């Protein structure tokens, strides 16, 4: 549990869980789309040249990130992983596959950054980032 989580008011706790569930939900949904091979996912990965293995691999990372985010002890690591995948997705949208879906990836990235900020005390490499 995060230090902020421990000390926070009920309102912040509700917000934290809301962001957790929303972010993990979006990541999980994207992962399932890749596993089941929706038309959108198939087309996207074909344009990226990553093929089926790349699609499943990215889907697995997204699913792992979603699961880590849902557990309070590992939220920070899940958010970091999720942010990495989403930066990749944003690059893909901007450079190769067009702007459709960019907003979705950006939203998940914002969710991950929010979680990283709230849970920053849980990981030593993040703890110092905002110290002022």
């Amino acid at each position, binding site marked *: 549990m995060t230090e902020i989580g421990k000390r926070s008011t009920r309102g912040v706790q509700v917000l934290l869980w809301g962001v957790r569930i929303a972010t993990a939900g979006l990541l999980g949904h994207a992962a399932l789309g890749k596993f089941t091979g929706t038309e959108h996912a198939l087309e996207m990965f074909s344009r*990226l*040249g*990553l093929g089926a293995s*790349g699609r499943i691999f990215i889907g697995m990372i997204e699913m792992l990130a979603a699961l880590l985010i849902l557990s309070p002890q590992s939220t920070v690591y899940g958010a*970091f992983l999720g*942010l*990495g*995948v989403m*930066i*990749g997705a944003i*690059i*893909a949208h901007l*450079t*190769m596959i067009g702007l459709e879906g960019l907003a979705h990836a950006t939203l998940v990235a914002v969710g991950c950054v929010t979680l990283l900020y709230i849970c920053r005390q849980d990981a*030593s*490499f993040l703890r*110092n*980032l*905002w*110290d*002022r």
Partner: protein
Amino acid sequence: MTGGTIGLHGLSRFTNRMIVVLAAGFLAAGVYVSFWFHFLTVFFILLTVMNFFYRHVQTRHAVLRNFGILGQARYVIESVGPELRQYLFASDTEERPFNRHERSEVYRKAKGIDSAVSFGSQAAYDSLEIKIRHSLYPTDSAELEPFRLVLGEERGIAARYTLTKPVMISAMSFGALGEPAVRALGRGAGLAGIPMNTGEGGYPKHHLAEGCDLIFQMGTAKFGIRDTDGRLDEEQLRALAGQDAVKMVEIKFSQGAKPGKGGLLPKEKITREISELRGVPMGRDVISPPFHDECRDVGSTVRFIRRVQDVTELPVGIKTCVGSFAELRTLFEEMKSRDVYPDYISIDGGEGGTGAAPKAYIDGFGVPLLPALHGVQRLLRELGIRDRMKLFAAGKLISSYKWVVAMSLGADAVYTARGFMLALGCIQTLQCGNNTCPVGITTHDPILQRGLVIEDKAARVANYAQGVVHDFEALLCSVGVRSARELTIDNLYIPPASILAREALT
């Protein structure tokens, strides 16, 4: 970041630039060669962002502002420093408070493994150490008298308590220790036939659960037996002393970890159960007062001892770390003039103990055990009251050698807390106050407590106690005495330079 600072400056400048260049390079490779390169692009973008925050956003850490991501290595290496030193770099004889040799001796005893060593001592053996003098005519082990120490016999009370082993588990409260540790110690104490001190943690619910003999400790805050003003509630004390398992009561005046300062339980370790058992709020450090409200001078102190004796009808001892012998003398003189004595005095060495305490107190307060013990013994003899009470010693007494030294200097029996913690599996990570004990002893985190299996560790506690008692008896034979009572300072070789040398004290 010491040594080669100029080199580090250049290296960090290079690193900080290269992170950005690599991020851009992999981005281009990802676009023009293969999308797989973007895995590296993402990695270096994250590094670049973190580096920006380290260097331009945060203001607290100069190393990070100056060196960026490279400076973070300092914190990473520093955080694993204790482990690196303990496992890789510290020699077998240089760790504190117990070096690897001392710890492995306890581990071996606890596991019932032979602890004999060969080819000479690893200790810095020289003429400046206290040694035990052996006899040309050792005692036959068949002639050894069984250890027997009767507490309360001087006052002739009905509820006397007889120690049949020279060792007791020293004061560790539920709070300082987690429940599995308390239960394992309690069960082990029962198996070994030794008593366990409850510490000052209030109603000893978990200590009582194992049915071993208990010494209930009354701290200055009187957790578990206090009225609403924090003073002694006689009814609660009477009820507690009436429990079958409670054999003695100990009034704690001070302890070696923080003499002159009240007990401290860090807020990290205060669970709901502890807050209920002690009657204290959660979320705040619990700091006991430095003195008993009832004891403001020698007169009131002696009256309080008598009051506790009358209420409990049990043997009642006092525990103190020695500060001033002159103060102790006035206290003893008052005892003598009123003919009121505690049934025992426990001398805690100023070397520090298990308790959480400010560093200045652990390092710098209190007379060390051996001179303290010897001084108290001399004082009691000088006043002609040595036979009115027993004397216990505590402070790093984890081996039979140390027991013989302490008992030669006047102790009738010894206490050890850390010896039994090591027997429980303590690996000396020094995290007792953080609730993060990796072996589940001084933590209330159920995930960490899972590692401590009560049945297994209780057996080790008993093995350790029995193993050291066995060695102790062997040492008595080598000294040429038939019981611990016969030990005197003459059984020790005390280097002339030592404060303990009789020439220096007489």
